């Protein structure tokens, strides 16, 4: 028993290093994809303390719109532009219809409202796009689909070019976001809004503008995520469940932190894969990925209640 838990897995790792590398790479790639969803969450949370549950469905919605527009005859890149317009309209609508009337309500109410948005988008999306699984227009967008094959330690390591692209794009996106939040006036206003609506209003920060902006950026992130996930697994509403994976990522990294989303995403992606392969499958009957991330996040939170990179919770009287 003790041997199975503490020795055998490591022995396995050393025995087949190429396989371990493959596991790490797969973990890394899923981690990046989780992180991308988490990024959208973080941005919105920062600016409004809204825990935007709809981020997951926005991913699906963006991807479906893209594929749908392309199917309707638009060239790939025009379809991307048109999708961005759709995401902008969505941001404006959400702000007008949902956020504006709910300004200043408790967090949980807004959280609920985003679940309302999620349901609405699911229904709306299915009416428009139908429920069939669709193929992402990977090639049309010029995303490479081949693979790189390496033979480290005489073994086999396969890297999908698609995954490599995703990793690069995600890295660029994160840098851009970090710069935006920390070095711009808007960035500061976004952080201020998260602290105190009323005060932000009183100094002339316009909630409307910032919220539309933030939801639009979240929409862009959703599109990128949608393309990346869609290219791997096809586009359908079943994708929506991956949104749940973003939750532990957020908690682990800290709700307000971009860095946290990335580090949390990678940690969870890699560790859950390693745990599943070396412990979960042999010892626990597999499928531990459903809960591992949550338990990991929980354990980390016990030591750091605001997550690894979250803002310290101010407790004063």
């Amino acid at each position, binding site marked *: 028993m003790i041997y199975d838990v503490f020795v055998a897995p490591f022995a396995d790792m050393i025995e087949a290093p190429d396989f371990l590398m493959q596991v790490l790479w797969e973990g890394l790639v*899923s981690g990046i994809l989780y992180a991308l969803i988490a990024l959208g969450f973080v941005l919105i949370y920062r600016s409004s303390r809204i825990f935007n549950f709809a981020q997951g469905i926005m991913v699906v919605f963006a991807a479906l719109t893209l594929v749908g527009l392309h199917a309707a005859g638009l060239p790939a890149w025009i379809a991307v532009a048109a999708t961005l317009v759709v995401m902008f309209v969505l941001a404006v609508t959400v702000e007008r219809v949902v956020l504006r009337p709910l300004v200043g309500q408790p967090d949980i109410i807004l959280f609920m409202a985003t679940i309302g948005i999620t349901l609405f988008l699911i229904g709306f999306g299915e009416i428009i796009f139908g429920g*069939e699984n669709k193929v992402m227009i990977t090639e049309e967008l010029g995303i490479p689909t081949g693979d790189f094959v390496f033979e480290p330690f005489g073994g086999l390591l396969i890297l999908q070019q698609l995954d490599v692209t995703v990793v690069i794009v995600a890295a660029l996106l994160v840098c851009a976001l970090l710069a935006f939040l920390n070095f711009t006036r808007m960035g500061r206003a976004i952080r201020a809004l998260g602290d105190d609506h009323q005060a932000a209003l009183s100094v002339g920060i316009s909630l409307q503008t910032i919220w539309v902006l933030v939801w639009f950026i979240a929409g862009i992130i959703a599109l990128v995520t949608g393309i990346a996930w869609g290219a791997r697994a096809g586009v359908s509403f*079943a994708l929506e469940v991956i949104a749940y994976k973003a939750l532990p990522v957020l908690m682990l990294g800290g709700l307000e932190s971009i860095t946290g989303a990335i580090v949390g995403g990678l940690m969870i992606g890699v560790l859950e*894969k390693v745990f599943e392969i070396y412990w979960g499958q042999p010892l626990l009957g*597999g499928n531990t990925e459903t809960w591992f991330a949550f338990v990991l996040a929980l354990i980390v939170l016990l030591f750091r209640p605001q997550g690894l990179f979250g803002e310290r919770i101010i407790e004063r009287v």
Partner: protein
Amino acid sequence: QELYAPNLAYRTGPFAATGIPLMNGQADYFTLLNERDGGIGGVKINFDECETGYSTEQGVECYEKTKARAIVTQPWSTGITLQVLPKTNVDEIPILAPGYGFSPMADGRVFQWAFNIPSSYWDGASMILNYIEQEDGDLEGKKVAFLHLDHPFGKEPLPFMEAKAEEKGFELLPIPVGLKEMQNQSAQWLQIRRERPDYVVMWGWGAMNAGAITEAVKTRYPMENFYGVWWASHDADLNLVGEDGAGYKAISWSYPNLEAPLIADLKEHVIDAGLSQTNEEEMQGVFYNRGLVISMILAEGIRAAQEEFGEAEITPTQLRWGLENLEITDARLEELGMTGMVPPFSTSCADHTGHSGGWMLEWDGEQFQKVSDHLMPETEVISALEKQAAQEYADSNAPWPVNEECNVGG
């Protein structure tokens, strides 16, 4: 004047992709009967759908809503089937669950009201194993990975597979895929890569199949050693990988015969009349055609009952008789214009499945091709297992009414 045969359809939710072609096929068949023949035996069939989204909860609601008038219930998910199974004893409505549900339902003595015609999952598993042995020789010492949805449906064939593994001496490696992992199966496929099984048998559904097939291509698993159940033979899933998926096989008890007179009739009376939701591409797929076969089974049941009882407006109980006395021979199939779309089979009071057997289909890069002759499951072994499981079910749900008259024939 009509017969109400509602369908608990799922054109929404995570499994909609697979549901839609099936539902379209089912609906079109009845539309055809209504349009071309004026229904069955002179009565039109009301084939309304009640949407479940594959959710058990909504399925039960649909069942409750429709059961007052319905002559049959078609629950369309193993979860819903399990839930309504005990209720039908009280409500006396036949459940028609073609090719899904609970394999022991084959035992008509215990499950008087439930039918999984023409093949059960255990049949399917058995045919796959037989085919492998027939093609590649003995399974002894081989390793078979059983990749399945972690859900009642996916676990359904496990008892049979376990029994077989013991008997034939191969190593069975069950690999569950959680409902939330369907689209992200890299862990499962890493495991497959590590374990290097000789065969992968997949009990997948909905988005899981597409996920598995793409991962298989990615990890370079030899496609010709990859087998799926009939619900994993959806053309759209394979279209995702196209050429790379060539060699993938799935067992099936139905097959599209585009030359069949039925198809021509459909085009004429249904499609061109604008009464269908399907499209050209979908019509050629395995699932749409399976939908047709499923409706045919129901229609034949109704017809049999009408003939037996001499009434056009049959009751649910009469329909049960009809479904228990199906006689789908090659000749009958020809009359129906469905030659080659389903193997011939017959049911009885004791045998609610019919054990039609099926064909192995293979993806050639563009579509599924029949690559085998008519395959048959090991009916003996299976029915013994079925009897035992059915009895266990009845015992744990006592008092459970049993149809003792069925003992004849066995």
